């Protein structure tokens, strides 16, 4: 077996396994060799599941050999999938990158994990992340930071930094991330991968350990657009266990991979290129828009005034929800428990939480608690919800004038580790282009649009709800015609 197989897109690896050109077992073994080689350098994973992955692979090989007519091999047959460590996996510890869940082993699978297994995908491990998804660099993990495979002195982005770096370093065929304010798209931009946050409610949140329930979605992080469409088709679709899941059937999004953007109307919103946007990033994104214009699309420059308030609105809602969601971690039923000697429960709770949570998590819990407190609720939370509605309406208006919006995913290039940790506000500013999609529930994809001095730059495409098909179409056309990784 040639090792280059790991560099292939997931769809091609799956085809090779199905055609028995390579056995799933050999492929998974090779994958773990690669992981063992890369991990000391980039640290993408918190937990690896080599043994169970190899057993799964053997079972899949047997199934391929003995398959009867009419029986179907899953769409993800044999592929190694890395799962962000805030998505529950039965029998595999799920930590959220936090000390407080250091030893937490969920008794159940998240719906997305069930679906991946149902399609023959193999879980290879749990990826590193900012604690509870709070951060844009994956430096806030209790288990230590992940390093950007393109330049290990730099951050991989966050909070799904482990998943994106695993894909970028060929440590996994496919990966799952979760995106509350850009946590899939940001590391995809910094690591040169494709990452999608779908329409809110299209992917079940059952089994996703909540940070900001009304904002977050699980989504794919992959090497290319086709892999992304494949995985998204496998994990999306209605789930009765999630009340916010939309009554929308799962679709085969690979059907949307059409290499044609003729007549497409692109909206370029000036607020997405605001102050703080790196000139290099802006140039690459504009060049990309011009390339698409060359393929038959047209563009209009627009403005969405309310975007000015998107960031504070997002942080108030996310932190408020987080302060409540994270209340259950008291060390009583599971997770980290400080050694205690007959304290009253108030003291026990406080101690467990003081020692169990990291700095950024505590900061957001306190801010969220403040925002929800009597007397401040109207001023902060309710006002944020009203602005959220306002932003939604403005996006609706904007989409009357265009089919998709194109902008940078991250306003800046991947920066050095430690560079922004000292200043949380500066770190929050990085999310300026990604949070609008979370506030509005709109689908958004990040794809690589260029490499500058060895660092990838991400392009974000946003569409109306349910229009993932359009995102895939534009992204695919761009990928086929305008960008080559080696170029």
């Amino acid at each position, binding site marked *: 077996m040639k090792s280059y197989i790991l560099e292939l897109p997931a769809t091609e690896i799956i085809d090779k396994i199905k055609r028995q050109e390579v056995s799933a077992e050999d492929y998974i073994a090779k994958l773990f060799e690669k992981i063992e080689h890369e991990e000391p350098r980039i640290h993408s994973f918190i937990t690896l599941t080599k043994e169970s992955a190899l057993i799964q692979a053997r079972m899949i090989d047997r199934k391929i050999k003995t398959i009867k007519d009419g029986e179907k091999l899953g769409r993800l047959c044999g592929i190694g999938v890395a799962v962000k460590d805030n998505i529950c996996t039965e029998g595999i510890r799920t930590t959220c990158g936090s000390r407080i869940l250091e030893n937490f082993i969920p008794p159940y699978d998240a719906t997305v994990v069930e679906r991946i297994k149902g399609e023959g995908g193999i879980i290879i491990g749990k990826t590193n992340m900012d604690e509870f998804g709070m951060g844009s660099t994956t430096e806030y993990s209790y288990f230590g930071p992940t390093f950007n495979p393109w330049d290990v002195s730099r951050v991989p982005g966050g909070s799904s930094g482990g998943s994106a770096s695993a894909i970028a370093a060929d440590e996994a065929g496919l990966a799952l991330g979760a995106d509350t304010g850009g946590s899939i798209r940001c590391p995809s931009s910094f690591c040169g991968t494709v990452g999608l946050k779908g329409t809110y409610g299209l992917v079940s*949140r059952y089994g996703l350990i909540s940070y900001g329930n009304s904002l977050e979605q699980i989504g794919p992080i992959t090497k290319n657009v086709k892999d992304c469409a494949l995985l998204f088709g496998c994990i999306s679709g209605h789930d009765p266990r999630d*009340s916010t899941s939309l009554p929308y059937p799962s679709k085969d999004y690979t059907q949307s991979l059409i290499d044609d953007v003729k007549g497409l109307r692109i909206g370029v919103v000036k607020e997405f290129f605001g102050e703080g946007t790196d000139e290099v990033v802006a140039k690459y994104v504009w060049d990309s828009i011009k390339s698409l214009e060359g393929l038959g699309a047209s563009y209009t420059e627009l403005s969405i005034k309310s975007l000015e308030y998107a960031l504070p609105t997002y942080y108030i809602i996310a932190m408020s929800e987080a302060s409540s969601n994270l209340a*259950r971690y*008291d060390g009583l039923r599971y997770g980290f428990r400080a050694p205690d000697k007959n304290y009253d429960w108030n003291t026990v709770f406080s101690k467990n939480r003081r020692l169990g949570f990291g700095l950024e998590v505590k900061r957001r819990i306190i801010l969220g608690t403040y925002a*929800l407190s009597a007397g401040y609720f109207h001023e902060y939370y309710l006002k944020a919800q009203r602005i959220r509605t306002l932003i939604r309406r403005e996006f609706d208006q904007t989409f009357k004038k265009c089919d998709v919006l194109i902008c940078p995913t991250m306003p800046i290039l991947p920066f050095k580790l430690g560079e922004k940790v000292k200043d949380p506000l500066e770190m929050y500013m990085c999310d300026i282009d990604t949070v609008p999609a979370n506030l509005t529930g709109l689908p958004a994809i990040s794809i690589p649009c260029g490499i500058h001095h060895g660092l990838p730059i991400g392009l974000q495409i946003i569409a109306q709800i349910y229009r993932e098909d359009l995102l895939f179409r534009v992204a695919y056309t761009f990928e086929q015609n305008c960008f080559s990784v080696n170029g």
Partner: protein
Amino acid sequence: MVKEDLVRIGLEVHCQLTKLKSKLFCNCSSDYRGKGPNTNICPVCFGMPGSLPVLNEKALKYALMIALALNAKISERMLFYRKNYFYPDMPKNFQISQYDKAGGMPLATGGRLSLDDGKIINIRRIQLEEDTGKLSYDGTIESSSTTYIDYNRAGIALIEIVTEPDMNSPKEARLFLQKLSSILEHLGLCDPNLEGAIRCDANISFGGGRRVEIKNISSFKEVERALRFEITRQRNLVSKGIEVKSETRHWDDVRRVTFSLRVKEEEEDYRYFPEPDLVPIEISNEMIQQVLSEMPELPEARKRRFMDRYGLPSQTAEVLTSRKALADLFEKSIELYPNAREIANWLASDLLAYLADTNKEIESLNVKPDHFAELVRLIDDGVISRSLAKSIFIEMVSTGKMPSEIVKGKGLEKISDQDYILQVVDKVFKENERAVKDALMNEKAINYLMGCVMKESGGKIDPNVVLQIIRQRLDQIRSVR
């Protein structure tokens, strides 16, 4: 002295929807009583990371029924809110509940319930929420070094009914609860006899003073007791010129006192906000119509029907419909023997008195409708006297034996034997010649003879029959003369 009408009492009643098979937000069984600790839990009701609540549709339907039965205004849109506070019995450290402020919309608002004397108790809001787990201790809460937590009860569906402070006495509070309980029983949604199925907190203020909340009152009797205690306590304070503190007190039903749990400096901050995992629920007119069409007959309607169809006096009909089991027993009994008034009287007075004396529930008795039907039939047929029937009744309800069986077993059937009665009358006539003479002249003197006959027979004879026979005998004597 402050007048009693200056007492203001409001109740917060939590009723478990015992008819539901599963919990409010998951498929776990709702039958938690008597189960081993923490055997009845799943990731959802245990609040495991990543788990999400899904509303039990039946719970909503049942809650709507209760709201409609209490004449409340159903909200067009209902929201769930999170009530945040740290407590070991809450798996998530927040409770999924509803709220009527800050944009919240509970299931229903503005209901009312009228007491028998026509007084109206207004209901502020009716909402759906999840129950918490249960804490227990080694010995007492103060002395135990360990707290045990059982989450079996966590996630059970509760209806919270909050009244306005419209009640002016502990008795009114009890009457309200009894009335409410009968409605719930008739709806078949909450079995008030199950332990912990109805729990109550009471707010009480005295003479316009500060509000005191009494928590964890377990039964209706206790509500009255706790409130009585609290009124006396507050009255004593006021009479000594001491101000009543605004606080939360616990009712200790063993020592029968309230004691302070915490003094409220200000309203606790629960940081209510909309539960992001549950979407707002639209309650359509069609849905309400559907629920209305499925509603069983309620106590008020049943009482009116009892009065109209069976000619029962208002008071009797009221008593019968105050408990569904009692009303059911009545209706089944009169199907077997249609002397409605007579059966109603036995149930409404004798049976309830027996239950009160013995502290038993109707359901635990071994008697069926045929028992009551037969008892009344035996009386109507003159087989047993009314006074004898009283003692037969007690034996019947305590043993479950049929009345005819009891009559036979005691050799009591003789009493209906005309010959036997004649024998006794003759004996009395012989021994009381003077009285017989008097009776021939003076109708009123018959009573003395009656008394003697009854005494002779040990009271087992129907006095009507005796009177009849004595008259016959006197007539015979007259005619002989």
